[in-house]
């Protein structure tokens, strides 16, 4: 589960990780208020308005139909209010959102951290994630902050450092010191960075993050180390032990059909193609998508109905897939093991009759327990449903349907 920047920063503060302070608001006049409060608190005329969406590239992205950037600096209450009203309710298009963009419902009015001081400011990069091959968490960091880290990794791999954390003892102080040294920090900034890294790692573990990225990690002119931006992704499997984090979920950021599928415990991912599919098992579902493509179609979705495909789940699956007007055919691919194919077939027939006006061809491939009985049931139902037993037969039927 992804969090917004403002949510992630609130959580980091609970772990004593210093962040760029800010106030989230959903109205332009509230943004003006927030600016005034920040000005009193920090004595700085500058402030930043940051669009809150689940995608990166906000600073370079623009609100559709305008020149307004998703992150912009202002130096008066009036200016902040104007920027906020330009952004709020608009659709922000960034390199990560795709052409459709994302509607901005909230902005974070944040303190300006580039204030002057005795020393130069500096931007770094730091993230914590799981190294799957080692089975350990790894801290990735770089002196090249504020930019696209994948580009840095590609162009100058020697500027990316990695520090693996042993699961038994956790992050050790010497490792945090090594990170601060490698970032070239000295004196107060060095001490602050060591504390920052240790507290950030505690937050990563304590919140069960799947990924935690601070970009830029920032050294201020007065030697503070703070998180200016934060991308936090939580481990969905661990949400059961963090009910308070589950409450931070922003459904408006998710595809509405995916949200609806979730209500029926269906695992659904919306894609762009013309052949819908409904499959039991994630691996077989991906394989079915691949087969649709090889048969000349394009998969319209990923849908795993799980181990207990029945009339209710099949009907919900049908209704969700049929919402997409681009769908020209639907392939149901069930390998019956514990679940009997004839029951699934009956489920398909019942769902079909219950929905009534399905105009696209339906191809049902049922294999495994009672596959022959299932085929017979479907053929005798009188419905416009084509049935197959072998995967290759189903592929041929898909090919015919999209031709």
């Amino acid at each position, binding site marked *: 589960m992804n969090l917004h920047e403002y949510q992630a920063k609130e959580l980091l503060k609970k772990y004593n990780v210093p962040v760029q302070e800010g106030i989230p608001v959903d109205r332009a006049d509230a943004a003006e208020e927030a600016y005034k409060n920040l000005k009193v608190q920090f004595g700085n005329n500058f402030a930043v308005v940051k669009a809150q969406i689940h995608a990166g590239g906000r600073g370079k992205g623009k609100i559709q139909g305008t020149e307004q950037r998703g992150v912009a600096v202002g130096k008066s209450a009036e200016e902040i209010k104007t920027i906020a009203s330009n952004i709020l309710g608009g659709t922000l298009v960034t390199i990560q959102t795709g052409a459709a963009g994302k509607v901005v419902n909230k902005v974070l009015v944040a303190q300006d951290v580039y204030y002057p001081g005795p020393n130069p400011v500096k931007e770094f990069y730091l993230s914590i994630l*799981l190294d799957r091959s080692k089975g350990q968490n790894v801290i990735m960091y770089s002196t090249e902050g504020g930019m696209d880290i994948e580009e840095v990794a590609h162009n100058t791999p020697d500027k990316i450092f990695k520090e693996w954390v042993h699961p038994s003892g956790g992050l050790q102080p010497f490792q945090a010191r090594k990170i601060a040294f490698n970032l070239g920090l000295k004196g107060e900034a060095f001490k602050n960075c060591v504390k920052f890294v240790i507290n950030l790692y505690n937050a990563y573990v304590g919140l069960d993050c799947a990924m935690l990225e601070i970009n830029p990690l920032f050294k201020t002119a007065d030697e503070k180390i703070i998180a200016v931006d934060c991308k936090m992704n939580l481990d969905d499997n661990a949400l059961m032990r963090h009910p308070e984090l589950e409450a931070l979920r922003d459904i408006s950021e998710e595809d509405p059909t995916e949200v609806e599928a979730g209500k029926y415990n269906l695992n659904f991912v919306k894609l762009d193609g013309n052949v819908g599919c409904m499959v039991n098992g994630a691996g077989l*579902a*991906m*394989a079915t*998508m691949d087969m649709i493509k090889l048969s000349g179609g394009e998969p319209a979705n990923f849908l795993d109905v799980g181990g207990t495909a029945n009339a209710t789940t099949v009907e919900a699956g049908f209704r969700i897939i049929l919402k997409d007007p681009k769908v020209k055919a639907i392939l149901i691919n069930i390998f019956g093991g514990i679940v009997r194919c004839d029951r699934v077939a009956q489920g398909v027939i019942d769902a079909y009759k219950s929905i009534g006006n399905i105009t696209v061809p339906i191809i049902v491939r049922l294999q*495994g327990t009672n596959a022959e009985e299932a085929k017979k049931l479907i053929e005798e139902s009188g419905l416009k449903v084509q049935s197959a037993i072998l995967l290759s037969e189903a592929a041929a039927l898909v090919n015919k349907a999209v031709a």
Partner: protein
Amino acid sequence: MSILVNKQSKILVQGFTGTEGTFHATQMIEYGTNVVGGVTPNKGGTLHLDRPVFNTVAEAVKETGANVSIIFVPPAFASDAIMEAANAGIELVVCITEGIPVQDMVKAKLYLQGTKTRLIGPNCPGVITAGECKVGIMPGFVFKKGKIGIVSKSGTLTYEASDQVAKAGLGVSTAVGIGGDPIIGTTTREALEMFMNDPETEGVVMIGEIGGGMEAEAARWYKENGKKPVVGFIAGQTAPPGRRMGHAGAIVGGAEDTAAAKMKIMQECGITVVSSPADIGVTMAKIIKK
């Protein structure tokens, strides 16, 4: 021969008396698997499915001599169950549970280091040696006895492959579902190595999916050590980057873990890669019969 489990294996069911445990233990017993008992804390001393229930794995091992365990414990307690089994000296632990928090598995994986315990899974269908022993949730009848080993990250795709292999006139020695989570006990390479060393296995079907580097690791090992034909398939050729496709580990993170990248590496290492899942069985038959 075969690998991992056979007629001699003595199976213990952790989470024995729960709904899932009861259902699948019954199926395993019907298949002919030697289920010697189960563990459910605070139900020790009772009988379930005509077999003794114990409070702890250690006690169950002492009383029954069990050397394999299968875990049907809810996600919040599953990593603890894995460690308990390892602590009791169980040689092979098969964890079916889906949805275990990643950080729990980081700890459990470390705990297993230096023990004699091998873990299969979590989030997997289990292991089956055709006609001898089923330690998992797969439909037993699909696995006709034969000489092809199957290693797969996916459940239903394993059944699909086994069915195709049987229809092509070959059949299965052992099928191992290694699981679709980011951290799993036994890797593709380790399963492949066991099959290479098993005299009863003449060819291997290797099924992977997007995410992680296990298939590439297995392929590189195969290039140096392979002595039997391998047919490979990678699910998720059409999966968009950055999206999780059902399995917690099935997500394209970079250029290296896409289906296309994995298929290329496998091909370069001498594995016969099929792009359609419908071609797994026929392709294996062609190679074996040559």
